[in-house]
């Protein structure tokens, strides 16, 4: 097996695991901001309980987002040093902004939010969660600025074989950026909303005593999913135009594609410049899932007078639909990323020039090591998430009030 293939496999594995968790992070944090703000404004205890329960799941899920994100960030240097060498002047900038402007603040705020219950003023505590959410969105935006540049390089010039930045504004108005960002945000809201609906449906099926709480989160989750799925499909189809124009090889044949392949063959030598069919098959299934979710949400009117809960079988539909958004987001990324093969930067830098010049044994060790590690952590994390979701909202560890008679307790109280 050659180094290039192993490096691509590693990137695919890490990115896929990463996105399964960050989609939930981005979706759930939006819903958390909603419920905590509602609690702050109305003062109703149910919102505080919702925030603690869903916040706990959010925080458990967040762990894998960081762990995989760290590996992703270092992977560029470890496995794709050619990318840094030839296009780092342009591609590195949005990622640097992402880490420094968004991630550093996001994690700092989250640490204070987790430990700030009953310690900070309620307004400050709420502001921290808003900070977490806004920086999470900023993070997604800057990562997509970087990714959009790989899809369609703009705002640069080549001097001495190396790309130099000429127009940063062009990176922000990249035709492969705007709709994609909307699509990713909508997909995250669908994923987060579906998770919330499915867990609530599970508790309603089991007739957990917390009826009012899970009824509320079922409504919040389903309504969010319903609104987001419309945006999701809209932003999805809106991308076909601009992406097909700048990437004629992505969605199949046509005279544009043949002309471009001829141009590349003249410039880079003969080679296979057509992406594998895998990407378009995946795209088809993703669209199918999107429409499936859309029609599935025709059950939303059953929220009226709780028919959805009283009939019971719609709850099962909601619960069993949970895996679909996760499958769809992976297929979506495969369509976008595999669809630009064989390019690391479309039409500019082929993957075989971007990969690091390291031995295949080393790359294999790294692939197996990171994939096993992150895969095992992902499974463990899902088990923990499932257990905490099933445990219900009786007393989550997050935001548990400290022991009352503090004067006699010099030590922290562990529960």
């Amino acid at each position, binding site marked *: 097996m050659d180094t290039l293939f192993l490096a691509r496999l590693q990137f695919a594995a890490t990115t896929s695991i990463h996105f399964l968790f960050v989609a939930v992070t981005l979706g759930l944090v939006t819903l958390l901001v909603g419920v905590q703000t509602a609690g702050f404004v109305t003062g109703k205890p149910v919102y505080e309980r919702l925030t603690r329960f869903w916040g706990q799941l959010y925080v458990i899920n967040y*762990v894998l987002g960081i762990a995989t994100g760290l590996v992703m960030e270092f992977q560029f240097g470890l496995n794709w040093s050619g990318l840094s060498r030839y296009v780092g002047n342009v*591609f590195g900038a949005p990622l640097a*902004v992402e880490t420094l402007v968004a991630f550093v603040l996001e994690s700092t705020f989250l640490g204070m939010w987790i*430990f700030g219950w009953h310690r900070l003023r309620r307004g400050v505590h709420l502001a921290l969660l808003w900070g977490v959410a806004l920086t999470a969105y900023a993070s997604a935006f800057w990562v997509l600025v970087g990714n959009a540049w790989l899809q369609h390089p703009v705002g640069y010039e080549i001097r001495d074989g190396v790309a130099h930045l000429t127009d940063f504004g062009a990176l922000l108005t990249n035709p492969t950026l705007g709709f994609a960002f909307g699509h990713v945000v909508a997909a995250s809201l669908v994923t987060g909303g579906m998770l919330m609906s499915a867990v609530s449906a599970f508790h309603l099926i089991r007739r957990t005593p917390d009826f009012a709480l899970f009824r509320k989160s079922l409504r919040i989750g389903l309504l969010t999913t319903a609104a987001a799925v419309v945006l999701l499909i809209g932003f999805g189809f809106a991308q076909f135009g601009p992406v097909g124009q700048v990437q004629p090889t992505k969605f199949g044949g046509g005279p544009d594609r043949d002309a471009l392949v001829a141009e590349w063959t003249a410039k880079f030598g003969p080679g296979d410049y057509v992406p594998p069919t895998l990407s378009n098959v995946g795209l088809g299934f993703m669209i199918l899932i999107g429409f499936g979710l859309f029609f599935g949400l025709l059950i939303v009117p059953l929220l009226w007078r709780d028919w959805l809960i009283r009939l019971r079988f719609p709850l099962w539909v909601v619960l069993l639909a949970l895996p679909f958004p996760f499958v769809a987001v992976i297929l979506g990324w495969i369509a976008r990323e595999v669809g630009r093969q064989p390019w690391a930067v479309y039409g500019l830098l082929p993957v075989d020039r971007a990969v690091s010049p*390291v031995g295949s044994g080393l790359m294999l060790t790294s692939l197996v090591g990171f994939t096993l590690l992150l895969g095992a952590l992902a499974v463990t994390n899902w088990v923990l998430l499932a257990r905490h979701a099933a445990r219900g909202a009786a007393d989550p560890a997050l935001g548990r009030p400290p022991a009352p008679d503090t004067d006699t307790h010099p030590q922290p109280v562990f529960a």
Partner: protein
Amino acid sequence: MELVWYALLGLFLATYLVLGGYDYGVGLLLARGATEERRRAALTALGPFFLGNEVWLVAAAGTLLGAFPTLEGELLSGFYPAVFGALVGVVLVTAGVQLRSRPHGASARAAWDRVVVAGSLLAALGWGALLGGLLQGLPLHADGHVDGVAHLFTPFVAAVALAMLTLVAVQGATFLTLRLPAAGAASLARVARRLVPVALTAVAAATVLGLLSDRVRAAVARPAVAVLLPLALVVALLVARAALGQGRSGVAFTATSAALALPVVLVGAALWPRVLFSTVDPAASLTVADGAASEPTLSLLGWLVLPLVPALLGFQAMCWWVFRGRTDGRAPVYW
């Protein structure tokens, strides 16, 4: 402009070693916590700071990626095994600390704590090996290609990795004397005091091996720096030991923090103006200017990022201020 970014990179990296250093130090010390309560007390002391500490690693990596892309690619792929080990360690610590208290069972928690110990060990050794590797150079060719990974396996690198491990352990123990309830702090002050001589020995061994190594002597452009800064490190450790003896935890923690920041300064200053020294072709060595992004990128990042650095530090300072002091009955428990 490169110098500003290089200084910023150094600042982020040093901050990471100081703050992440006590995460890993506390992680290592979980190995001696016989009871679940003692281990959890240590993690509660880390509490609100934990998530804010490792962000400096991400900040340093982001700065490398944006402002020093060429350096980033050659540094990380050239020292692949060290970076791989360190990253596996960081991932284990991140997941272990945050997930260990989610299961209720004592045995599951003890298993997660072993994961944290192993992760802390790997992270400290890995970053130490990277710093040692930088000081002895690597077989780098002009096309960015590095000959194998055997260059990393030398006594000097091993000594630096071990020295980093001991420094991190001292840092963790000193941090706990600052944060644990007064009753628990005294026994940790004794542990920290006993760890200092071990760290001194390891630092001395690394220094001597460095002086004896041809590769280190060739790579170091400023020998005076390379001798004076280890001496400063020794002084910092001695100050920490004395302060621990007098129960002045704040002074001791400042000193051990200096001891963790100094290696970054040492590597940056001793190699300057180079950063990657090639042992096979001196012309292929990478200077800071060669490794940096071109001018438009650096000035763009300067406009976007530099104004925010005070905010980053400010919010971290807010976190330290809000959660200052020793943990007590009102301390939030989550990890």
